[in-house]
């Protein structure tokens, strides 16, 4: 029940910040937080809202920014995609925020893009996504496909000797695009058509019996088989429960997931899932001092020792620090100045290295492959030797092979076609 108390305290804190936001005083710098606190996505996004509040509080303890205090403005777009656009407009126009940290699903990001473009503000987007996009006003601090999906497939191919692939995903834009990229990539590596099985399920799918038994059948053809899962959110728990009950062991058919982190595993008994994999750019188990500090700060802030940290939280950590540094560099929070200043800014990440903002508004990250442990944590079993630069336009899709993105002058273009030499080539 102490949980209830903290929640209540948080809610009242939120209410007070929102009242503060309305009275619009000039001696603070306002930061918008656009994460769903109700509806289906609240399960993932509420944590990010808390993480942002923590980061802002810590920055204020260090003396704020440009001599002013930071002030968080929290709104609730309620997992309703059109509402995201409205709330974004409200944050920028009514509350006058200087940067927004938010969104989770690709569809919510797509819905707010025109708003940020029109009102010329900044959005930091912290979740791994399908790529095929680069906007002047958006900074993508999550992983692009080449920072997550491709290295994971390489790992399975080289270390586990996988020859047969099940690409299973939830039916929406991120899994569909990622699987398209992966399919093209696998074929370029000589995997035959009949060794790839692609399967989509609706959001919140809860009856996995048929699919799990299909996977079992597909995997008994004598070749080493793995499942690449882009199954999203709520559907994962019943999926893993069914896998465990059907006795599919990681040693036989490993499942590598791109949307399953510490937070998702919190609702599961992970004992039967030991060895299944996930690819991220951060795991809570990362053994560095900066990560230990971050976890301690998080536990102290949230008042619960059992709460986990995850990859999108790290993305916000990196994105927020980059913004702070860019604002200090530019000496102003003016969006145009910050957009110019932020490219090349490099801040520590939580896995012991430095992440830098690239001209295509994606960042450099290490790629980690982790195996699920019986305590719900991941153990890193492989990582890239260096940092990987986020690639906005995939090299494996016909429509985007020739596109590059560079927001520095004089190019200043998010989809420059190197074949035709024109900005605004065909994209997504």
């Amino acid at each position, binding site marked *: 029940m102490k949980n209830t108390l903290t929640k209540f305290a948080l809610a009242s804190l939120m209410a007070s910040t929102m009242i503060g936001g309305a009275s619009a005083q000039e001696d603070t710098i306002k930061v918008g937080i656009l994460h769903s606190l109700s509806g289906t996505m609240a399960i993932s996004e509420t944590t990010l809202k808390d993480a942002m509040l923590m980061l802002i509080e810590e920055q204020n303890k260090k003396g704020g920014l440009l001599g002013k205090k930071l002030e968080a403005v929290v709104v609730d777009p309620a997992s309703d995609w059109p509402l995201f656009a409205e709330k974004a407009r409200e944050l920028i126009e009514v509350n006058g925020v200087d940067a927004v940290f938010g969104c989770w699903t690709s569809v919510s990001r797509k819905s707010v893009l025109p708003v940020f473009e029109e009102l010329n503000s900044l959005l930091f987007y912290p979740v791994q996504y399908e790529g095929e996009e680069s906007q002047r006003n958006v900074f993508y601090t999550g992983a692009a496909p080449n920072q997550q999906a491709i290295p994971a497939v390489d790992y399975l191919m080289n*270390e586990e000797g996988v020859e047969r692939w099940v690409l299973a995903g939830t039916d929406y834009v991120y899994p569909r695009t990622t699987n398209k990229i992966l399919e093209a990539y696998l074929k370029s590596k000589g995997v035959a058509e009949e060794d790839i099985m692609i399967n989509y*399920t609706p959001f919140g799918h809860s009856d996995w019996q048929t699919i799990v038994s299909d996977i079992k059948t597909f995997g*008994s053809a004598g070749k080493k088989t793995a499942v690449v899962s882009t199954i999203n959110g709520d559907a994962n728990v*019943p999926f893993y429960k069914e896998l465990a009950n059907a*006795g599919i062991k990681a040693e036989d058919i490993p499942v590598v997931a791109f949307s399953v982190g510490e937070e998702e595993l919190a*609702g599961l008994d992970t004992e*039967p899932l030991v060895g299944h994999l996930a690819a991220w750019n951060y795991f809570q188990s990362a053994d560095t001092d900066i990560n230990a500090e971050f976890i301690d700060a998080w536990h102290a802030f949230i008042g619960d020792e059992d709460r986990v940290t995850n990859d999108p939280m790290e993305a916000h950590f990196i994105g927020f620090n980059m913004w702070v540094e860019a604002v200090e560099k530019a000496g102003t929070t003016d969006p145009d100045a910050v957009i110019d200043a932020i490219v090349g800014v490099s801040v520590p990440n939580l896995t012991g290295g430095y992440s830098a903002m690239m001209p295509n508004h994606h960042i450099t990250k290490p790629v980690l492959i982790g*195996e699920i442990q019986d305590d719900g944590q991941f153990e890193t079993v492989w990582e890239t030797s260096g940092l990987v630069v986020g690639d906005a336009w995939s090299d494996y899709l016909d429509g985007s092979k020739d596109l590059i993105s560079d927001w520095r002058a004089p190019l200043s273009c998010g989809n420059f076609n190197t074949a035709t030499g024109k900005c605004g080539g065909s994209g997504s």
Partner: protein
Amino acid sequence: MSCLKSLFVFLCLQISLMVGLAGPANAQSDSETLRPLINELAEGKFAETERQIGALVATGDPIVAPALEALSAGDLYVRKSDGQVFIAEKDGKQFKLTDPLTLEAQGEAGRREVKKIKVNNKLRRVIRSALGSLTLMAPDPKVRIAAAEAVFKAKDPGSIEALDTAIAAEQDANVLEVMQQARAAAVLNSDLEEAEKIAAVEILSEMGNREALSLLIGVRSSSEGAVQGAAAAAVTKIEKSIAAWDAAQNIWYGISLGSVLLLAAIGLAITFGVMGVINMAHGEMVMIGAYTTFVVQDLIRTSMPELFDYSLFIALPLAFLTAGVIGIAIERGVIRWLYGRPLETLLATWGISLILQQAVRSIFGPTNREVGNPDWMSGAFELGQMTITYNRMWIVVFALLVFAGLILVLKKTPFGLYTRAVTQNRRMAANMGIRTPWIDALTFGLGSGIAGIAGVALSQIDNVSPNLGQGYIIDSFMVVVFGGVGNLWGTLVGAMTLGVVNKFLEPYAGAVLGKIFVLVFIILFIQKRPRGLFALKGRAVEA
């Protein structure tokens, strides 16, 4: 875990035996020569660990098995101060250390004093097949079967010798069968003579499952002559039997999905079907039941862990009461003012469902909550070539029991009689002295309570999150409308039909299209029979 435990027991036994037979000196020297090998496990990366495991296995001494088993389970740690390797078990903030060779307790160590030896899937596979040949002679038949299955998967011709010894000594028929299958798999991978291989093909053909099939397909393409012919015949035979089993499996999946639909819909069959209230907050009653299970398990975990296996039985009445009381409160507070105004009821209950969701989100947090499966609900068993998971099986049984119970209540108790009277002709019932408002409230409470106990069952297969109910509301309405409003038997038949149809469509159409087809099918069906499968007849319908 249980196999691990039994393995430990066996090893302790065996070690005590060895100590008894060969005298302590022998065991001593064993651990003296093996200890450096074990300690070496802590050094180097995965590739080196694999080589070190090979060196340990090459000693052929079963005494190394606990260390390997612990390594595979991630329980092998190295003490940073002196590089000694231990089996460590977490005990609060401390680790309890056990010597990996003598299995004697070696005191405790703090979290920072020891470091886990990393292991990955590849190493686990190596260890599994290595342990297989080391534990073929174990006293516990379960361990022997596990060992033989591991050898089967490894298909290593080198293990034929060990298998032959084990088969000669084996008394238990079940174990013997698995061992012979393992031997057959190894023989087919070896360069033994043709007659041996044909006999092996025969054994695999008898085995008849997918693993045997994939092996035989491999043999068919790689061998020649008589062996190839035998393999081809066996493949055809197995394929035929598997096709039949596949159909059976689909029916079972359909029934299982149907039972989940039934559980979700049966409460609605009362509130919507019998009372005619469009209750959009029905899913949230299911969710409240699931959260009750979570709270019960949480209390049990902290105060009396030995009761964990009974947690669901404790949760059932509590979930019924919690959801029922909330249901009665909703009926008394909101719905009773809205009888006869379906649109307003729909909006009001939709609002209630949002309030309940957000309330749960504020109290328990937005993230998933862990509801554990008791032992008797975990795992699966094989029926022929079908795999049936225990949790699904018990849910089918449970759904049918709930259904039967509800029918009894409605048909055989005075309360059921009043309910039916009120719903069929309210004014007449009131004239006969039935307090109709209270029957309304209690009936709504009953429907909600049933949704609550459905939540207990669904917590075993789905997320326990504030969104749990939303996923079931559409399906529930679909089942009730399809089965025929006002008829419980219709709900049963409707749920099972939709489940089976869905599961037969899914392999061909995929999960997304399958669901769409089912919806289209229902729309067409409702066009033809607007009152569903089992329509109520008589004047009540017109009222």
